[in-house]
Structures are given as structure tokens and as C-alpha cells.
């Protein structure tokens, strides 16, 4: 495609350098600020020369550190706890979404059955529902209806075994948040995986069928290994949403099940923002997605193009 006069054009490389600077600059800025003391951030001595300190990270992680740093007298930020919550919720919901989603995608691609069109249409439709729209009903349902009754069978059993009152609602539990994340991500995962499953040659499956494999065996042993790139892409996107989501988690979680985004927003809305600590928590929240991006950018791009173009 390259025309002769455009090959080694310095302006061209300047544009690229500028773009890279613009897209990565803010991230690097935050990374550097997370190693500065608040005094340094506010006094604004020039960006590059400063004495790096891990005090901010110590302050953020104070509830999981095995030693007690001198500069902290009271550990107010329960970051470690929130980080573990985020991790549990994101990993479990990603795993569930993937398993359930690729089974459904497989059924939609390979079988003709009653209600197939309705299912695939509604899957597409719910893809556009914003989390904010789900806020009100999910809040109401999870708090009032999706509960185990105090006198009911399961509630009674829980009370007898674990003590407590025995009436549990989904709100405030990990499973409550996981359930809504799985439901929210399913349409997207099904949509992406469909475009990968279509490409699996039918003859392979038929060969396995002839050799005596049942439908589930065909699915797990033949189809799944072939759509690994699609699974990776879908996993990354699901993880990213579950890991980053704030709104629904804030409505559904209580003190013990708070996730990291909630912690950050709560600390931001205080009057006197401690920039260093906030940046450190932000950096810790950003690290897993950054690692994924660096390791699997090809899968991410494949997934993005498949999701947009082939739809």
C-alpha cells in the first residue's frame, strides 16, 4: 500500500509519537504520582525528578500488610478487603459467564429449535440495556424479593447450622453481585462467541459424532479447544466489565462486600482529596487490565472486530 514518497516521512512518525504520548501519557502520569508524597504533588516540582516513595501504597494496603509502617497511625482504608472482593466477584462471574455463554452460543449456531429466533433477538436487544437502567429494579428485587425466608426451609436450615437470623437477601452478598454481572455480560459473550463457533467446520463435529461421542462430548472436546481465541477475547471483556463496574456494585454491596471502584469513588467525594493514596489505589485497580492488555492485545482486538464488524 505504501506509495514511494510516504515511506520514511518524519512527520508521519511524529504523528505516531504524539498519539502514543497522548494515549499513554495520563496513565504514566498517574503511575508517577502514585509514588509521590502529597506535598510533592501539590507543590508541583517538575514531573520527572522526585524521590519515589511507596508510602501511598503502604497506606492503601494497610489492612493486609504484615508490618506496620511508621507513618500510619490509623488504618482507615480497607483496600485489601475490597481488592479480594473484586477479585472473587470478577473471577467467578467471568468463569460462569463463559461456560454458560458458550453453551448457549453453540446451541444458537448449531441447532434449529423452537424459539431460537426469539432467543437470539432478545439476546441482541438486551445488549443495549445500560447498567443504570437495571439499577432500580435490581436494587428493589435483590433487597426485597430474592430473599430466603426466615421461616422457610432453606432459611431455617441456615439458621440452625450457621446461627444468625437465617433470612438472607441477595443484596450484600457476593453471589448477588455475581448474578447480575453474569446476566449483564451473557448477551455480549454469546454475540462474540457465535461468530467464532460459526467458523468451526461442521465435518469435524460429525466425525466425532460418528466415532460415538455424545453432544456434550463433542462440545467440550472438539468445539471448545477450537474456539480458544474467542474464549480468551470474551473472557477479557467480561473480566474487564466485572472488574471495573461501579454503579450496580455500589447499590448491592454492603460494608464487607465493597469492591475497589466503590472504595475509590467514596474516597474521591471527600472534601480533601489525598491525591497520592487515591492514585495508588487507582493504579492497583488498573494493573490487572493493563497486564491483560499487554499479554493478550491480539485477542482483544480480534474480539473487538468480531463483536462490531460481524454483528
Amino acid at each position, binding site marked *: 500500500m505504501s506509495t514511494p514518497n510516504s515511506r520514511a516521512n518524519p512527520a508521519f512518525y511524529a504523528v505516531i509519537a504524539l498519539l502514543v504520548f497522548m494515549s499513554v501519557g495520563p496513565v504514566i502520569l498517574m503511575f508517577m504520582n502514585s509514588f509521590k508524597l502529597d506535598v510533592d504533588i501539590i507543590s508541583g516540582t517538575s514531573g520527572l525528578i522526585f524521590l519515589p516513595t511507596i508510602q501511598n501504597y503502604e497506606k492503601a494496603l494497610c489492612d493486609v500488610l504484615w508490618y506496620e509502617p511508621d507513618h500510619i497511625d490509623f488504618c482507615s482504608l480497607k483496600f485489601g478487603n475490597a481488592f479480594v472482593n473484586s477479585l472473587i466477584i470478577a473471577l467467578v462471574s467471568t468463569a460462569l459467564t463463559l*461456560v454458560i455463554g458458550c453453551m448457549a452460543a453453540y*446451541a444458537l449456531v448449531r441447532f434449529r429449535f423452537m424459539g431460537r429466533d426469539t432467543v437470539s433477538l432478545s439476546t441482541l436487544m438486551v445488549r443495549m*440495556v*445500560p447498567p443504570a437502567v437495571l*439499577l432500580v*429494579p435490581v436494587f428493589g428485587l435483590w433487597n426485597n424479593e430474592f430473599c430466603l425466608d426466615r421461616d422457610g426451609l432453606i432459611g431455617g436450615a441456615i439458621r440452625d447450622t450457621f446461627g444468625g437470623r437465617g433470612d438472607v437477601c441477595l443484596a450484600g452478598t457476593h453471589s448477588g453481585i455475581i448474578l447480575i454481572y453474569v446476566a449483564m455480560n451473557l448477551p455480549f459473550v454469546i454475540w462474540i462467541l457465535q461468530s467464532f463457533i460459526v467458523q468451526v467446520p461442521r465435518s469435524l463435529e460429525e466425525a466425532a459424532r460418528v466415532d460415538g461421542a455424545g453432544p456434550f462430548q463433542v462440545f467440550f472436546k472438539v468445539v471448545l479447544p477450537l474456539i480458544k481465541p474467542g474464549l480468551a477475547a470474551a473472557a477479557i471483556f467480561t473480566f474487564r466489565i466485572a472488574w471495573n463496574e461501579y454503579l450496580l456494585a455500589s447499590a448491592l454491596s454492603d460494608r464487607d462486600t465493597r469492591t475497589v471502584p466503590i472504595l475509590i469513588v467514596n474516597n474521591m467525594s471527600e472534601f480533601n482529596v489525598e491525591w497520592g493514596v487515591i492514585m495508588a489505589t487507582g493504579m492497583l485497580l488498573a494493573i490487572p487490565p493493563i497486564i491483560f492488555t499487554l499479554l493478550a492485545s491480539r485477542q482483544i482486538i480480534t474480539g473487538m472486530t468480531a463483536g462490531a464488524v460481524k454483528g
Partner: protein
Amino acid sequence: MRTAMANRLTPYMFMAPAAIIMAIALMYPLGYMVWGSFREWNPSQNIGEAEFVGLKNYIFLWNDPNFHESLGVTLRFAFFVVTIEMIIGVGLALLLDREIRGISLLRTMFILPMMIAPVVVGLMWRYMYHPTVGTFNRFLDSIGLPRVDWLGDYALTSVIIADIWQWTPFIFILSLAALQSLPRSALEAARIDGATGWQQIIHIKLPLMMPVLIVTALLRLIDAFKVLEVILVMTEGGPGLSTEILALRISRTATEFRELGVAAAMSNYLLILLLLLTVGMFAFNRWQEARAARLNALVEEES
């Protein structure tokens, strides 16, 4: 006989978990919301205890100037964000469509902003826009220009800039992919006929990319209505109502003003808006397929 039965049941068994979860956690809540939007409902009540008020919530919103303001902000935000991102993204794709060494590394860096949590993006930009310690005002200071109150006087613009930073790469990458899968023969033919670079872009590249571009734009548009965290962290909807997009207003109505009924009605208005957009996208896709099929048929007839 038994295997035939099992075979017929297989698709349902594969579908069942997804169908059940989506029914419980998506469809039922959506129906519940429609039901709740006709009620005077506050968070401490069960929905059964809430009083049925008919269309009151909808009529109240229809005449509520704050809701109009917030709807206007949402539409303006979505319009500017999608337009500017499309122009910059497609422009960059056209500009950078050539053999670049290390393109995969570049793409990795470009998708970084999309993968980072919106909360963190908001945090970074709030810092950079900060009136005294922020990067932009420091820069203005150092070159002797007056400071700008980014999140005060130009709140909506600042929020739009942050979103452009985060999502332009998405459009850039998609349109670059579309550009590089264009049929070589058409471009070759144009070049032999002596078309200039601009003519190639306007008459050949853009029309051929159009289907992908329109789908991309619609996807971005639907996503633009979902933005919430970035704005929440940067401005909390302020100053005044100047950046309070609908999603944010819904969450504030539900949690601060404790009027779940009104929030539900507002969610319904938003859903209807998005439904129209999605139906538009569908119709466009169908039309596209029909046209492609017709063209194929024509080509086959001729050959």
C-alpha cells in the same frame, strides 16, 4: 428412540442455563421496573405496598425542566462524542494506513485507555483538570497563559474530551481493520486511472468502509448512553446540572431523592430511546444484507 429424544432435547439443555439466568436477572427486573414506574415507590417499601399512581411519574418527568436539561445534556454528549470520535478515528486510520513497523505494539498502547476502569479514567482526568495542581493549568501557567477552570466553566467540554481520549482508539482500530480488508483491485484500478489520494479516499475508500463505519458509530452511540462512572468521578454531574447525563440522574433520583418510581419511569424513557436506536441498527443491517444479496445476484447473472 431414546437417542432421538435426547437429540431433540440437546439444544434446550445447552440453552437452559443462559435462558434461566437472563430470565431471572434481566427480563424479570426489566418487567419489574415497568411495573414499578407506575407507582409512588420509595426504597423502604415493598413494591406491593407502593401506591399505584398510573402515568403520574411519566407526566411529571415530561414536564420536569430538570429532566429536560439532563436529557439535553445526554443527547449533546452522545452527539459530540460520537461525531468527534468518528472524525478523528477514521481520519487517523486513513492517515496511518500503511506498513508500520511495530504496529501490534502501537495497537496495544492505543487500547490501553479502553481497558482501564472508568473510575480510574475519571480520577486521572479530574487530577489533570484540577484548577491548581492539575497538569493542564500548570502547563498554561508555565507558558504564561491565564488558567482555565476546566471542570467549572467548561465542564461538558472537559468531560467530552476525556471520553474522546478513552474511546477514539476503538474507532481507529475498527476502521483500520476495515480499511485493510478493502478489495485491493478497486484501489489499484483507481490508482491506474490516476485518482489522487483525496479522490481515492472520498470516492472509493469511504464508500466501501461505510457499512462498518455505520455499525461502529451506532455501537459507540449506544455505549455513549451508558457512560456514568467517568462523569460521576470527574464532576458528580455538576456544576449545576451541566454534566448530569440521564444515567447519573437515574442513580441520583433512586439513591439521593429516594423516588424509585420516578427513577424507573426515567429508565423507561432512556430504554425507549435506545430501543429506537437499536431497531434502526437492525433495519440498517437487514437493508445492507438485502442489498449485498441483490448485488451478488446481479453479478452472477452477468457472468
